[in-house]
């Protein structure tokens, strides 16, 4: 089985692919990165928290111009995963306003970014229509 590495460290591939947030133990605020402190309550203790795999699309845009190496058009949006906002691309969907609307139900999905010189495969994530 090819070795896999996630696009970002908050995407966990051991077991069912899922997103894991850094949750402030004092106030519950969730972040998707290494922290110095909590921006909400200034606390300095965090624990990993699994984020719900399904959610509702709260907003989106269809980007037509991007940096070299990024295919356009692509759909960027924010998904409300049971109270945790997640920034992601919408994938496995026609990138047109006729196929996308705010409020639609979506779920976490993964895709391959290809293998590196050592044969390690990078795995990215997005959300696809349920």
């Amino acid at each position, binding site marked *: 089985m090819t070795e896999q590495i996630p696009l*970002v460290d908050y995407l966990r591939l051991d077991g069912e692919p899922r997103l894991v947030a850094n949750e402030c133990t004092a106030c519950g605020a969730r972040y998707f990165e290494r922290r110095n402190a909590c921006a909400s309550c200034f606390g300095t203790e965090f624990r990993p928290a699994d984020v719900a795999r399904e959610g509702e699309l709260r907003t989106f845009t269809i980007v037509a111009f991007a940096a070299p190496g990024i295919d356009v058009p692509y759909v960027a949006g924010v998904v409300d995963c049971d109270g945790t906002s997640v920034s992601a691309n919408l994938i496995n969907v026609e990138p047109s306003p006729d196929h996308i609307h705010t409020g639609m139900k979506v779920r976490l999905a993964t895709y391959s970014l290809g293998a590196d*010189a050592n044969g390690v495969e990078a795995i990215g994530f997005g959300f696809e229509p349920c």
Partner: protein
Amino acid sequence: MSEDVWILGITMTKFGKHPDKDIVDLGAEAAMGALSDAGVTMADMGILAYGNLVGQSFGQQLQKQIGQTGIPVYNVQNACATGATALRTAIMAIRAGECDMGLAVGVEKLAGAGLLAGGSRDADDGTWTPRGRQGAVTAVDGRINTATMPGVFAQIGMEYGHKYGGADFELFARISQKNHSHSTLNPLAAYTKEMSLEHIMGDIMISYPNTRPMCSANCDGAAAAVVVSDSKLETLSKEQQRRAVKVSASVLTSDPWQEACQVLPDVNTLTRNAAAQAYEQAGVGPEDLDLVELHDCFATAELVHYDNLMLCEPGGAVDFFESGAPWRDGAMPVNVSGGLQSKGHPISATGIANIWEICHHLRGEAGDRQIEGARVGLAHVIGLGSACGVHILEKRAA
């Protein structure tokens, strides 16, 4: 004569090579150390003055790690005097009576690569290598949402539509049509052509629903202002006094923490906070405004700011636009200059340029586009990251 100012807490980090720490790590270590030394927290700060040169970072990035309380952030640069300038800025705010405690931070990484966004398969030895605070193995912009301004602000506008309804592509395009129409009367605008709705909706799509004319125009420009104290103005000529415009409110805010604010920038809360502070400072309400110049960096942004600046009821921005109010002949003229979409947006100039527009009308010198009898105006700008500046200007009493 203002009272003395004291240093309550102070810290420096070890100076040397810190390859495993980015700029914000170092700034956080110093800032959290100073707060701890002082026995206070970010909640006690009324101002943040932040200095960083080579890294091109800004104080809001530090706030997002150690405390987003919405206080004004002044990002200062003065070559090697940057740190002292940051401290001076905090001292001036306390001397001016604008707050009673402030934090000044100076940070630099000259021995490392600074803030890295993410690695690249092509960078070193062709292997996926996690880098940065998210352990990204390649650039995430475009793979995980977008960092492009048209895309970010498109989502901000669409989110308003999701929450309150009624905001579709055509509505946003009609906002743009208004501003392009207004600019036909402004000889200083970058674009002065009327544009039909069909033209705007049919033009090149940048990031749905923002087409090219719905995006602020990139152009060159500058603006400047001279400010004077009340007592000094009294010593000047009658003509100088007559044309002087009163700064009734001058407010700066940053974005306070909200649940999704580090996922999609929240341009709403800090604008609403700045507007509320400004109305209170000036002793006026939105109903007293004769004209508004707000930050329409994109047509999708203008809509949310009708609500944020309290020009309408919460959730009522679509109805407000449909009523005709923000047109130059409406009850609350918005962006009669043509706004950023048509007048243009030379970034550092805009914050003074839209105040110029307000002053032009308050002095009765706006000619063809004069809003008759204008006495009170509001100017609003917002820089992503974020900072919001709101000024309320008033015509001098006769």
